[in-house]
């Protein structure tokens, strides 16, 4: 008689094997080095965060939660200080930048991966990547002297004609003077968008290029046009890349310093309009105030730096989760 499964199990007690891995020396060395390098990155992050927290602690203790709401900056004289206006400006500049950069980046990435002839794909990619290599100071100078005089006419037109929308409001009655629109959130946002485009484009390009050939061919074989393939295959596949690329761009835009510092005229009172003169950003605030601050001022700047650090950390963490997650089913094999 053939024993059934149950019978054999009850007779022979099972003993699970202890899985032991013996590593040889080179493997152990390499493991050690890689682990150490990995932890160094983490340690650096912790050190920077800790340093900002430590140096900013006295200011944070003094201001408390009002640090996030106060719309003035006078720590050196012992007055009130806070990022109640600076933080919203920072975010506004970044959002203006994304609003411009994301559509351009999607279009550029689609062109490179879907439409461009194969032989110009690589040069075009390098060219876009090269844009990222231009120092932000150069963008700032070019933005200040070339772009701004042209952009303020856009600002004026918006202020004159679309002033009833709070975002484009300009103080005083129309027609407004052109100078009223210089050094605004809008101008800073446009310049920052130029720096964000190469970053967003390269993330999106990489994701679009991986859109599965099988599905693209399926769409074509059904009588689809190139646009149909993009709409039904490439864009749904690349959704994670689009969102992730935009978030990485946001992280970059939030921290942009020198170009914003050159362009804006710093302001500590909140205004909703992006066209009106006056804006600010945490990074620009630190850059502008650092050399003229006393111990109290430095501590307050460190606290502002901590806020920026945490914000960019959060944005980038979300971005990498979205980019890394990809699409469910992307790796399905039958």
């Amino acid at each position, binding site marked *: 008689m053939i024993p059934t499964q149950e019978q054999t199990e009850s007779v022979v007690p099972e003993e699970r094997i202890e899985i032991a891995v013996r590593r040889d020396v080179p493997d152990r060395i390499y493991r050690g080095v890689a682990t150490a390098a990995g932890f160094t990155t983490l340690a650096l992050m912790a050190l920077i965060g800790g340093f900002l927290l430590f140096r900013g602690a006295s200011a944070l203790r003094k201001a408390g939660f009002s640090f996030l709401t106060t719309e003035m900056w006078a720590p050196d004289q012992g007055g009130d200080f806070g990022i109640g206006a600076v933080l919203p400006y920072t975010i506004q500049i970044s959002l203006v930048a994304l609003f411009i950069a994301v559509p351009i980046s999607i279009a550029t990435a689609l062109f490179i991966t879907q439409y461009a002839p194969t032989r110009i794909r690589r040069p075009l990619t390098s060219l876009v990547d090269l844009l990222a290599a231009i120092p932000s100071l150069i963008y700032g100078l070019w933005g200040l002297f070339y772009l701004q005089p042209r952009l303020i006419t856009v600002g004026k037109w918006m202020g004159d004609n679309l002033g009833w929308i709070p975002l484009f409001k300009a103080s005083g009655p129309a027609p407004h003077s052109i100078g009223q629109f210089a050094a605004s959130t809008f101008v800073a946002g446009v310049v920052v968008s130029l720096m964000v485009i190469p970053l967003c484009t390269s993330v999106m390009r990489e994701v679009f290029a991986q859109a599965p050939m099988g599905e693209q061919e399926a769409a074509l*074989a059904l009588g689809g046009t190139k646009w149909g393939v993009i709409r039904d295959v490439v864009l749904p596949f690349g959704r994670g890349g689009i969102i992730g690329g935009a978030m990485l761009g946001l992280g970059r835009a939030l921290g942009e310093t020198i170009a914003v510092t050159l362009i804006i005229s710093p302001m500590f009172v909140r205004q909703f309009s992006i066209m009106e003169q006056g804006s600010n950003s945490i990074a620009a605030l630190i850059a502008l105030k650092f050399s003229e601050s006393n111990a109290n001022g430095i501590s307050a700047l460190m606290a502002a730096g901590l806020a920026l650090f945490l914000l960019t950390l959060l944005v980038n963490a979300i971005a990498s989760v979205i980019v890394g997650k990809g699409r469910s089913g992307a790796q399905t094999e039958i």
Partner: protein
Amino acid sequence: MSTINTQSTTSNTSQTSSGDQSIIHSAGEVFIESPRGLSARNVSCWFGEKKVLEGVNLVMRPLEVTALIGPSGCGKSTFLRTLNRMHELVPGASLAGEIQLNGDDIYRGAMPLTEVRRHIGMVFQKPNPFPAMTIAENVLSGLRLSGLKVDRHERDDILETSLKRAGLWKEVKDRLGEPGRALSGGQQQRLCIARSLAVKPQVLLMDEPCSALDPSSTRRIEETVQELSDTITIVIVTHNMQQAQRVSKFCAFFLAEENQPGRIVEADLTAKIFTTPRDERTNAYVSGHFG
């Protein structure tokens, strides 16, 4: 009574169609069309400078299943992809010769590229449903992609008919809103067949549709192919000789001899190819001596 031409067919292919099959009623007139279905004349293909296919002549009879067999690298899949203009998607690919659908040249004729592909559908080796779409959306995706406008009632009708013809309706009728990727491999392949049928093609090309599937799913697809051949012309590439015998009426044997482009060695009724082939090489292949 061979109905497939292999030897340097020139313009005279009308003799292959017989009797009433060659007569079509169109706009009140009766005319003889030659040939009906899909036909290839003197087709050669290149990838860059490499010639992979040479001088292929083949008539694929309407409402019949034609199988393309041969060892790997003989050019049968390449040939299949010339039939709905998918070949040209590969960078550097080119071709010579003529492919006609009901007598219209699909490369030089007036029919736009997207129309060609809509009339000549394709099912691929690996099931490739659109992962972001539900089962129903997958089936109807071709309507959207090819810009066909249909009302709601007609959509439901197309959805049901296509799934029924692909033999999938019973299994999915209560879960049309689930993602296409939730189905098993064999069901996904039948979903892809339903998707192709939804745009009402005249010809369905199948590129080794069962090579990624288990035996029972393969059997289901083969049954589907047989049922479909009553209403649609089918050209199927297969590595599986039993499959070719089971599903096809006609069969073309492709072979690429060493450093030579692929050619058709022999094309005939499937029964003849597998029992009394004219060419020694065909005999060797179908009896399993190589390939």
